[in-house]
């Protein structure tokens, strides 16, 4: 008699074993009504989904913040004319000696004041006048400090003059040129 294929034998013997299993009796579990079951904890897929949603919200919030900062912190589109427009921005090597002294003096002033001055050249151009009033607002008890301030004021005054000569003032900005930012708010304290 030919031997049946192995698959046939497997199914036939599995049926025999299933009949044995069907004859077994085990106590049935005690299941409460489903309404009384605690809420199931979220599975891994649900947790990952929530994290993804949170990450998406975070990314959207960051993008919105960046967009807001770019929109409101970018160049102003207000019709008020800017204070100073630079026709050309000179390379650092083209800065005059007085201007270099002024830039160096700015660092000294910042060090003395303990705060950062307005970095714009428009603010720097008005520094000599501001520096004249500066010693009066500071506690300059020592002569050496007064001399230092006076010398710095002279250097910066010369730098301001050099700046005015070096850069041509334009009434309207060319499209490709940058507009100088407004002076720092604390500029007003120095007149």
């Amino acid at each position, binding site marked *: 008699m030919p031997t049946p294929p192995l698959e046939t034998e497997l199914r036939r*013997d599995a049926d025999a074993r299933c009949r044995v299993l069907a004859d077994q009796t085990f106590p049935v579990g005690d299941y409460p009504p489903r309404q009384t079951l605690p809420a199931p904890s979220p599975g891994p897929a649900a947790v990952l989904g929530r994290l993804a949603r949170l990450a998406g919200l975070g990314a959207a919030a960051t993008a919105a913040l960046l967009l807001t900062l770019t929109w409101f912190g970018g160049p102003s589109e207000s019709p008020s004319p800017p204070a100073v427009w630079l026709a050309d921005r000179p390379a650092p090597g083209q800065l005059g000696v007085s201007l270099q002294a002024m830039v160096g003096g700015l660092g000294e002033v910042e060090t003395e004041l303990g705060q950062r001055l307005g970095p714009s050249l428009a603010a720097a151009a008005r520094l000599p006048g501001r520096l004249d009033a500066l010693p009066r607002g500071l506690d300059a008890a020592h002569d050496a400090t007064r001399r230092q301030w006076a010398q710095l004021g002279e250097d910066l005054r010369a730098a301001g003059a050099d700046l005015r000569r070096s850069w041509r003032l334009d009434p309207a900005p060319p499209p490709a040129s940058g507009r100088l930012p407004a002076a720092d708010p604390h500029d007003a304290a120095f007149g």
Partner: protein
Amino acid sequence: MPDAAADHLEPTDEALAAAARGGCVRSYETLDRRYRARLVHLLTRRVGREADAEDLAQATLWTAYEKLDRYDPRRRFGPWLFTIAVRKAIDHGRASRRRPAAEPRGDTPYAGLAGNEPGPLQRAIDAEAGDGLWKRADALLPKNQWTALWLVYGEGLTPAEAGKALGVSRVNARVLLHRARKTLAADLAIARAHTHVAEYPVTS
């Protein structure tokens, strides 16, 4: 394997699961009666001890009851339940390995039974009629091969469903099935050759 004639008289597993999900506890008790012995049988081959398998079958049925909301009634209930059972067995194996005084366990499903008294289910299976092709499978095949073979030929799962239950790909499931059949066929050929020699001894 479920009785085809009885399917016309009794509600399907899927209908019972849907009713249980709607709040019918008796429907789930019917599912419990249908599946508990089959789960103990499968899990005994996975974890070695029938007592552990009974605990895991209880845990499987309880977990399934809790998570019925996640069961898709368009899919078959059996493969979903066996998938939970295999996961329980894998977790049990990991926990056993972490325990310092775990008893030595081999790779074959029966290896863990060494030194343990067989439970009632095992004794009933041992007494089953036939030439014992599945007894050979019990003794010879590694756990995953045995599980894949039983899920397909014993529980009627497709190879893809068996692979999903085992956490392997469809291709890997087919490889497991192929290797299992190859091992059984070789063992069966040797056994039948010996029988043939015994029936027709070579005389000098």
